[in-house]
Structure formats: C-alpha cells, structure tokens
C-alpha cells in the first residue's frame, strides 16, 4: 500500500499541491483526475520521487520514502514500474533491450533468463516477436504497450501511469486500460493512474481522487462519481454533452 500524508509542493511562490492525504491500495486502480494545472502530474512525480515534496510524506508499505536518500531509495525503486505519457522508451535501444535494461542493471540473471522474461512481458502486452524493432518503428499504442512491458519486467509492486490514453484512438485507449486493469488484478499491483480520460474513469476507476486548485476535492469510486453533488467534480466529469446525456440515462 502507498500512503501520502499532507503532500504540499511549491515552485517559488506558486503552491501547486496543498496538503494532499490519501491511501492507494494493492490490486486496485487508483485514479488521480483533475483539470489541466490541477497538480495531478506534480503529485505523481512527488510520489515517485522525481520531485521532492515541500511538506508531507510518501510511505511505501510502511517505509517513509521521503526521508530516504538516493541509495536507500534504490530497493524501493526496483519495485516501481512507471509508464510515461510519451512512453519514454530509450531511442537507442531495441524493444527487447528496453525491457531487459532494468534486468541487466538490477538482477544477476543469465542472458537467456532475461530474454525469457522480456519475451514473456512482450507476450503479455500482445507484442510477441517485436523484439528487434526500435521505438521509432512503433506506433503510439505499441510504444505504450512496450512501456508497460518494461514497467512490469521487474515484477513491480507499484505501477505508476501518467496519462495512458493521451494521443491514442478510443479503441487503443480501451485496450491499454484493460491491459493495466488485468495486470493490476493479476499481480495485485498498487496502480496509480493520472488521467483526465473519462472512459478510463468510468471503466477502471476503483478508487478516484479528484484534484482541484491543488487540493483533494473529492474521493470515491466510479459508481459514486455518477451520483455526486460536488459541483466542481460534476463540471469536470460531465463537461461534454455526451457525458451529460450518459448521466441523464443513469
């Protein structure tokens, strides 16, 4: 489980996050939603240690990540997988090398064992046989899937996903969501997803946190979100005519 306590982050005079407290449970898709500039990505970066919170703590299974130095964080980091908005695959490496990269650095497995693991991960994301392609030869959806394969190569306990559906067509978006959902349930991963895609929210939102003006404005599940009377959340979720019509049908 991941616990965040009173996370505050300021950049100069700009207070982006204001005392956010939440718990993210294993085997659940924990979604962080909110409008542009609400602090979603900043919160995610504070949790994974790419930003240091100005105040507050991030606790991974009882261990205070915020108080650790670089070396102390490494054992926890080897349990973290992350899918970036633009996949962040290493351009100079093939798909196979990208997936094997963390295995090369942090395990003592033989080359054959690492290759087996890479093939297993590729099969898991339906990209069997694409080992030797370079990221520049892949479509957006394939890059996301390779990103997921790399993220799960070390069998992570925690999976962080930043805008998994950005730049993807609706069908591929659903495939990516389903894949993340399957992996989360199958391996009981604590998954934290930053998104503003309402299909994801209504499809896989086991636990949803809505950020507004840098604060945690609302917390609940996908079933609760449809019936909330929170004005800001309603304005955000049901901004489109389609979503308003869908709500009216409920």
């Amino acid at each position, binding site marked *: 489980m991941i616990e965040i306590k009173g996370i505050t982050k300021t950049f100069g005079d700009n207070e982006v996050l204001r005392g956010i407290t939440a718990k993210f449970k294993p085997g659940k898709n924990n979604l962080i939603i909110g409008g542009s500039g609400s602090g979603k990505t900043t919160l995610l970066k504070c949790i994974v*240690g790419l930003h240091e919170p100005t105040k507050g703590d991030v606790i991974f299974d009882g261990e205070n990540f915020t108080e650790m130095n670089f070396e102390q964080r*490494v054992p926890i*980091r080897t349990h973290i997988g992350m899918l970036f908005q633009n996949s962040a695959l*290493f*351009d100079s490496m093939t798909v196979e090398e990208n997936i094997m990269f963390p295995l090369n*650095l942090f395990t003592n497995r033989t080359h054959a064992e690492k290759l087996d693991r890479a093939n297993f991960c590729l099969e898991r994301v339906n990209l069997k046989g694409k080992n030797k392609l370079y990221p520049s030869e892949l479509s957006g959806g394939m890059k996301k899937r390779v990103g997921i394969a790399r993220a799960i190569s070390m069998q992570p306990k925690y999976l*962080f996903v930043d805008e998994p559906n950005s730049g993807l067509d609706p069908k591929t978006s659903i495939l990516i969501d389903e894949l993340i959902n399957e992996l989360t349930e199958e391996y009981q991963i604590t998954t934290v997803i930053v998104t503003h895609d309402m299909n994801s929210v209504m499809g896989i939102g086991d636990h949803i946190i809505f950020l507004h003006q840098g604060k945690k404005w609302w917390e609940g599940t996908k079933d609760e979100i449809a019936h909330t009377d929170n004005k800001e959340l309603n304005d955000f979720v049901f901004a489109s005519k389609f979503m308003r019509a869908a709500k009216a049908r409920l």
Partner: protein
Amino acid sequence: MFHSLGKYILLLRLSFRKPEKFSVYWAEVMREMVSVGVGSLGIISIISVFIGAATTIQVAFQLSSPLVPRSIAGSIARDSTILEFSPTISSLVLAGRVGSSMASQIGTMRVTEQIDALEIMGVNAPGYLISPKIIAGVTMFPILVIASIALGIFGGWLACVLSGDVSPADYLSGVHEGFEGLTIRVAIVKAIVFGFIITSICAYQGFYTNGGALEVGQSATKGVVYSCVMVLFADLVITRIML
C-alpha cells in the same frame, strides 16, 4: 555564475558515484569510445592534412630568405602542429562534432522523460549517461590528437611534394631537427584536459535542458560555445605552465 559552477561540480560528483553494475557501464564506455574515437577519425584526418599542408606553405613563404635554411619550414610546421594546431584546432572541431551531439542527445533524453525513466528505475542517471562520455573523451582525444599530429606532418610533406616550395628532403630534415619530447607531452596533456572540458560541459548543458526541441538546440549551442571558450582558456594556462 557561481550557482551554475556549483551545479556543474555536483553533477560531476554524481557522475562518478559507484555504478549499479560495472559491466553495463563498461559496455557504455566502449560504445562512447567508438562513437568519439572512430566516429571522429574522418573529420580529424581531413582537417589535419589540410592544416599541416597550409602551415608548411605559409612558413615557407614567410621565411623565403637565402639566409634561412629551407629545412626550418619543417621544424616550425612540426612544432606548430604538435603544440597548437593538432590539440587545439582538433578539439574545437570535436567540440562541434562530439560536444553538440552529446548535449543534444542528453537534452533530448531529458525532454522526452527518458532521464526520469532512468531515475525511477533507481539508476544514477548522471553516472550512466555522463561518466562514460567523459571517460571516452579523456581517452580518445589524446589518440585523435596523436593521429592528427602524424597526419598534419604528413600534410606538410605532401604540400612540399606538390608545390615544390620546399624540397621534401629539406622538410623531413627540419621535422627531425631539434625535436623535443616535451612538445608531445604538452599536446597530450592538452588533449586530456580539452576532452574533459568538452564532454563535461556539453553533458552538463544537455542534462539541465528544460523545455522542448528549441531548448535542446539551445543547450547544444551553449555547450559548444562554452566549451570552446574554456578550451582556449585552458590552452593558454597549460601553455604557460608547461612551456
């Protein structure tokens, strides 16, 4: 300025932290050495031959007095090539070729979140990205400079053969006369220092890129400009200290 200097020193310290796995870093060092060394050999060969030839013709033209032995052209061309043209001009060219490539490569990795991906995995990103480049720079620059010296002197000989301003025999005699090993030591020290300056400054500029494609270009430009200025400053300091 002091803030940037502090950041640069801290980045260098992080770059030389104990590697997560030596074999992975070693492979990177080898890859960078091939890229810096073999990849730059062509351009270094071309400029060295032409500079050596041009220097010899100019020296022969300026010392065209019957009181000065013709072989002096060989001696002056040799010392100029060893002490200044090969280490300094080659390094300035390498700043453009190697330095800009390093700054833009690391800068692109920064803006496309590849460096964030490394950090999240628990990899010491400065160590993995920067130290192999610096090691490649300080090892391959001296080799390139030695090759440049040999090719520069060959270029001078070729100019003598083709132009006839100085006979090749006089030229070779001048090249042999009064040779001092110290000049080669100075050239190698310069090459090592210039290799460090160019790779570290360009890597620093790339590592702290912030923004998008425009900023990556600006980082590469800054890296080349700052490293060229520092190379010329270091050239003066080393020359003053060692000669």
